[in-house]
């Protein structure tokens, strides 16, 4: 067993996994269970037996005691959040988390904006001003889909994600939507998601894709009688991924919430 803020849980997986199991609130922007620890965002720092480490890349060991909210860690997270807001203007999950940490974006001088927007693609929208360089899109594109559409360019403060063409629609993107699904900052979104943010009564219905015999599990986001968005669901078959036709052709699926 491993102890997280006084709560016991089996010492399995990473310290971050263990924290999630006990319900400890720990920000983590660059983590995806399917991709393993990226170690990029450094938001999930915790104290393990007195040592400060990143929870995502630290294996949970028997008998460890973990503190997730010491004074030092709170101060660290706020400062990191302030730094992140000097670089980007994230929305979505990342934006909400940074605000919840108390960051207002006033502590550090703003760095030059990365003003790159793209609306050329039929389903995907890109706005790099929101990007926090978590690398999830790049890693998901390569590691989950075996595509190399998105890549990180530059070094140091000029590091940024890019797609190499002037229009995103000119890339070899297969429109699977995985990048938009993993993006925590709103930098990459799909048009369905953009629309769905305006629908307060949205709920999620787990369903099975009917396109082929694989049996991918999908989460249909439903508002009223309409499917507003389809996402690959966590299941042993498709592990959160989905084929492009399933993710982007919600209308043609003809599924209705029954």
């Amino acid at each position, binding site marked *: 067993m491993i102890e997280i803020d006084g709560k016991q849980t089996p010492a399995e997986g990473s310290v971050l996994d263990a924290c999630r199991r006990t319900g400890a609130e720990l920000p983590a922007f660059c983590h995806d269970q399917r991709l393993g620890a990226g*170690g990029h965002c*450094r938001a999930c720092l915790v104290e393990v037996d007195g040592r400060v480490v990143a929870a995502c890349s630290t294996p949970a060991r028997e008998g460890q005691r973990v503190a997730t909210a010491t004074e030092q860690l709170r101060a660290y997270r706020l400062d990191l959040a302030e730094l992140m807001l000097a670089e980007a203007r994230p929305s979505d999950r990342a934006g909400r988390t940074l605000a919840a940490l108390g960051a207002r974006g006033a502590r550090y001088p703003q*760095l030059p904006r990365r003003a790159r927007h793209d609306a050329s693609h039929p389903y995907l929208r890109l706005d790099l001003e929101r990007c926090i*360089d978590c690398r999830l899109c790049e890693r998901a594109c390569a590691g989950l889909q075996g595509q190399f559409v998105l890549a990180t*360019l*530059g*070094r*140091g403060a000029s590091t940024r994600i890019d797609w190499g063409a002037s229009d995103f629609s000119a890339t070899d993107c297969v429109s699977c939507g995985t990048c938009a699904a993993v993006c925590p900052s709103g930098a990459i979104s799909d048009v369905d998601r953009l629309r769905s943010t305006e629908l307060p009564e949205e709920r999620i219905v787990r369903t099975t894709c009917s396109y082929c015999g694989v049996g991918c599990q999908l989460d249909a986001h439903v508002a009223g009688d309409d499917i507003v968005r389809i996402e690959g669901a966590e299941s042993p078959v498709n592990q959160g991924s989905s084929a492009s036709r399933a993710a982007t052709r919600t209308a043609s699926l003809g599924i209705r919430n029954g």
Partner: protein
Amino acid sequence: MNLREWARRRAGAPEPVSAVELLLDPRSGDCAGYPPVWLEGIRSFYDYLGEVEGTERSCVGTACHFARQAPASGREVRCLGRCYEAPVSTATPSAPIPRSSLAATPVILRHLLEGSGPAPETEYAALPDGSTILRAVTDAGLKGRGGAAFPTGAKWRAARETPAPDRYVVANGHEGDPGSFVDRLLLEEDPHAVLAGMLACARAIGAARGVVFIRREYDRAQQTMRAAIHWAEDAGYLCGFQVRVVSGAGSYVAGEETALLRAIEGGRAEPSPKPPYPAVKGLEGLPTVVQNVETLAAVPWIVKHQLRADTKVVCVTGGVARPGAVEIDLGTTLAEVLERGCGGPSGRAWKMALVGGPMGRVLPASAFGIPLSFEALPGTGHAGVHVLDERFSARALAEHLFAFAAAESCGSCSPCRIGTVQLSSRRDRQQLERLLTTLELGSLCGFGQGVPRPIHDLLRHFPQELFP
């Protein structure tokens, strides 16, 4: 699927060149199956990719920065390992590296001092079996000379005991720390000692392949090491151990061991989280021992004599009469190194010294009595010593270190990517210390974690000069 596998399938080539090798040759406009945007990602990470060979660059490493009266013009390079003749540029040829010893028994420089012992080539044949080598290295208490001072024997044992079909030995010749040139000295003038050390490691851990990773700035070291490998192969000394030289492409962080493995694979030299450690999972997923050049050079001597090698080569530059590489017994005081080894001050009185490069320590002259050892002065990295005399301010050194940190941060983790460019914007001590803590606690690798180290020292010893 990894990038190289993708390129292999696209290009239909049996074994594609690494992306870095591809880009190091600017004449080739071919993508060799790599996605162009990924090639651009790699090109834009490094300093030298796509550059015409022979482009002149002025060195702005610590010694050259402070030796130069006016700002450097044109393109820059952060250290050519010629700090003893600072300031330099790539346009002028290098003078030989001055070397000497204060050690009772010189080990690292054993073949490089006047009247030195038997020819280096004899060391290959003298190597015993792997278990004997591992025991000798462990018993000698050898610690890594690259900066982390990790016990070498323990690292080798971890690699040996990890079940795997093959293993790798990697010599880290990416001497990025401005002010250090011992690796260059060894690679250029005693490559057989380094290669024999690699062969010893290969035998101890059961590795069939090795890589010598040498930074792009060290052209001549790459040539001499390649020639040494050919010679040793032809002479039959390597007994099937396959070694190749891989060139860096211009990035300080590539010296960090996990970043270095990425660089060898041809990608962006960004560190990855540990565990897994390279000794368990490194190149091609195989157990890989990454060892600094200076550490490896000591190994044949240790194995032969079955003795401890408690010496270190200290590279001294700046305000001393005779700058150069000095081998010392660990525990020798800094004052003794500067006075006896380097002839004392070159003119003006000493003010402070930066020990161990941009992630090292700053000592005021009043503290030069401190012994140089892993215990007495932790965090001194590769132990380059740059002495600053009274003309230079602590603020100037801090600004130099801030600029270095911002220029060389790889950008992979948030605190270091955003924090290093914010260092110079901090207007009071409290603001700066808060940012230093964030860098120290949060950064993924030793770079961001180490950037605050000399700044803390400057704040401790020269608070008035930093924030008047």
